[in-house]
């Protein structure tokens, strides 16, 4: 037994205030193998990885390295033990060179002076070993994403890792870059590195992994050799329900579409397509759920509808009126409104009071001649605050005095005060407590009942089910499935969302 596993987590639990994120999980890694770690959002994958990488300490349970119990207090400890992690978001300094990035924090010096030449030589050798002769002196930010990913891997390898955790390593890669990554993984495996591979893309995961481990609700529910299982088996274990084929799409009632998208295309700065020709129709009174994993293109789709990407191609029609040449302000005036995904970064203005946040999109309505009328403004805002049941100490208070859920309602109020015909919601309940979440869902249903068209993008199946009439599933910038929400089974949604749409 001893020596079979390089890293072992035994009966590990992690208690966060209010939630038990991991519940007695045992997870083992064999040297020279790839273990796929799978689970829905919130199943405990990232908590487990954080514990294995020394970022978090378990509440109970033990970690064994080479059969001996050990403890880690920090990422530096993990580093010393040869444990590396590549995060989903790349962690390179774009302004520094490839070599400087790889040696960041442990620069090679000669008598206290940076030895750039030796660093560059070592990096050149390392990259040659990875069959990627990237110039060590190139600025990291100038490289295409796939090469940046390789620099991240090189950074881990330069530390002589024996255990490497990769969190969604392909989410930033194009279809042509993925096989390269897989070759590198194969190479690492041959050299005895134990790899934890986390991905929502099941077919991809089965192609690269030797073993799969499935987490659900903080517990390890299944482990198997990858060659013995298929995506259906995994989805069953993930969701706890038997997989069923996707239901056929019901004939939709033929009312004219309120919003129509025709072949929206959007490329990332590197040329990788973020949206690959998305078309859809939305009718008044309908809630269209858009389900997809991170990076599927949901946010980009909504942003394109709002005119935030001037470089996008394709057409947006609202009531047969073409909006393509309009900026965001024009589209809002035409009847579109959006609640963005990241409330802090794009939803609220921290420095303004609740009132001013609510009326920001509709200021023109409260102006008498050139002056804002405080009475009109306050009347509109307090009416909407009551309507959405916004709990605030007062509309003149700073928005930061509100809870996340109430801040989110303020952002919704801002949209609704423009009297939109179509409301776009991007993860409207992220970071929102359960009570406010249900209220927001009820508001969405109510708005649709009043004839508004709503698009709700979410990575939570529960949310889609609670609100949507119809569901579109996106993966890698394309629509991979469409079905009435009543017939949308979790399994069908999950497998459509993880479908690797290859070019």
């Amino acid at each position, binding site marked *: 037994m001893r020596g079979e596993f390089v890293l072992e987590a035994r009966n590990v639990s992690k208690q966060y205030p209010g939630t038990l994120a991991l519940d007695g999980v045992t997870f083992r890694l064999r040297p020279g193998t790839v273990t796929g770690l799978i689970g829905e959002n919130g199943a405990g994958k990232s908590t487990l990885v954080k514990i294995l990488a020394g970022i978090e300490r378990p509440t109970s349970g033990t970690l064994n390295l080479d059969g001996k119990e050990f403890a880690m207090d920090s990422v530096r400890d993990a580093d010393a033990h040869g444990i590396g992690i590549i995060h989903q978001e790349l962690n390179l300094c774009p302004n520094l060179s490839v070599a400087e990035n790889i040696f960041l924090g442990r620069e090679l010096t000669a008598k206290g002076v940076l030895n750039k030449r030796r660093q560059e030589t070592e990096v050149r050798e390392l990259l040659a070993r990875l069959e990627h002769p990237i110039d060590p002196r190139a600025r990291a930010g100038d490289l295409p994403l796939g090469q940046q990913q390789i620099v991240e891997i090189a950074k881990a390898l330069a530390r002589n890792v024996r255990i490497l955790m990769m969190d969604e390593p392909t989410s930033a890669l194009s279809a042509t870059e993925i096989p390269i990554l897989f070759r590198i993984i194969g190479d690492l495996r041959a050299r005895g590195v134990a790899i934890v591979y986390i991905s929502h893309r099941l077919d991809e995961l089965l192609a690269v992994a030797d073993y799969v481990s499935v987490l659900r609700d903080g517990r390890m529910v299944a482990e198997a050799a990858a060659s013995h299982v298929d995506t259906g088996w995994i989805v069953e274990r993930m969701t706890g329900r038997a997989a069923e084929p996707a239901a056929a799409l019901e004939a939709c009632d033929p009312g004219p579409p309120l919003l129509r998208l025709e072949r929206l295309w959007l490329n990332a700065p590197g040329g990788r397509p973020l949206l690959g020709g998305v078309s859809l129709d939305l009718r008044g009174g309908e809630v269209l759920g858009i389900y997809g994993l991170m990076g599927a293109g949901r946010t980009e789709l909504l942003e394109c509808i709002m005119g935030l990407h001037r470089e996008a191609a394709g057409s947006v029609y609202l009531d047969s009126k073409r909006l393509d040449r309009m900026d*965001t302000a024009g589209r809002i005036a035409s009847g579109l409104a959006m609640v963005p995904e990241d409330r802090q970064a794009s*939803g609220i203005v*921290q420095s303004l009071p609740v009132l001013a946040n609510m009326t920001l999109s509709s200021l023109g309505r409260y102006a008498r001649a050139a002056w804002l009328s405080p009475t009109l403004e306050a009347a509109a805002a*307090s009416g909407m605050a009551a309507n959405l049941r916004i709990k605030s*100490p007062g509309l003149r208070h700073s928005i*930061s005095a509100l809870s996340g859920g109430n801040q989110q309602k303020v952002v919704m109020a801002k949209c609704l005060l423009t009297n939109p015909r179509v409301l776009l919601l991007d993860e409207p309940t992220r970071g929102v407590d359960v009570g406010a979440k249900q209220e927001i869902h009820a508001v969405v249903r109510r708005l649709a009942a009043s004839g508004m068209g709503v698009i709700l993008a979410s990575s939570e199946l529960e949310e889609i089910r609670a609100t949507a009439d119809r569901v579109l599933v996106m993966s890698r910038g394309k629509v991979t499935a469409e079905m009435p929400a009543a017939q949308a089974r979790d399994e069908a949604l999950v497998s459509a969302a993880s479908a690797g749409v290859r070019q």
Partner: protein
Amino acid sequence: MSSMTPAAGGDVTRTVARGTGTPLAGYLFRLRALIVLAILVFIFTALSPAFLTPGNLTILVKHVAINAILAVGMTLVILSGGIDLSVGSIAGLAGIVAGGLIHSGLALPSFGVKVYFHTWLVIALALLVGAAAGAANGLLVSRLRVAPFIATLGSMYVARGAAMLMSNGATFANLSGSVELGNTGFLTLGSGQVLGLPLPIWLMLAVALSGVFLAERTPFGRRVYAIGGNERAAELSGVRVARNKFFVYVISGFCAALVGLIIAAQLGAAHPATGETFELNAIAAVVLGGTSLMGGRGSVGGTITGAFVIGVLADGLILLGVSEFWQIVIKGLVIVVAVILDQMQQRYALKAAAALRG
């Protein structure tokens, strides 16, 4: 932002922060610039009998007027998240434009004549030049996305150089104009009186009131606050960010030109070096008045108070016979302390908000 007073009924207007220390302390803290001003006035009155006299106060406010007018424009720029380093140079340029037009007219070589304009037209043209210089800043910042610091640093040099070129580095002296050319009366702008108060003070009042109303009572002002607070959220909310930023710089350039005209009229002469380092005094007034250099927070009213703090301090120290060098040191210290207090208030406000959230 006391002016955003929704008089809505019921519990939405409750503004007392529970469990966050005494509301009074927080209130006094917000009015600190005004309190400092009152204390300064009190001290100087006690120490120098000459301080609180009509004659001294008029001189003091006339000095303040110059800085305050610049600082109102600067406040809008800083609220939007920018900075305008070119205001001193624009003031100098506008003064030279006006001085040149009055003094030697506009030469039209192809016709072999010189055209002299009516005084009102001269003033309008100089203001237009200031607004145009501001528009250039606005285009650089909003459309070409040059960092405001760099864009206005560049235009600071360009405007100063242009002023030097127009006068060949010389001063246009004697701007009283002549009756036969119909361009007399320019000096009234500096020395005229209405209801016993010098015209520049009235102009400051007009600019300050317009600034307060613009910032607090118009959609434009609200949008400027929003852009400075969170540009992306503002854009997503349908605020035309580029357009609003553009106008902020135009207003700042206009204010600067007005200052240039006032100074030229007061001196009866236009010198191309007029207004050097004025931008720093204006920024100091803005900061003293509690406006955050990060944008989004602050007020025009605070800026006016800040300009008065600087003016009273300078005037009082002169009356007390404090050496000019010490005056500079003290001014610097006051600014730094003001910013420290500002940071403290930010933290206080954040804590209060967190306490409310519960």
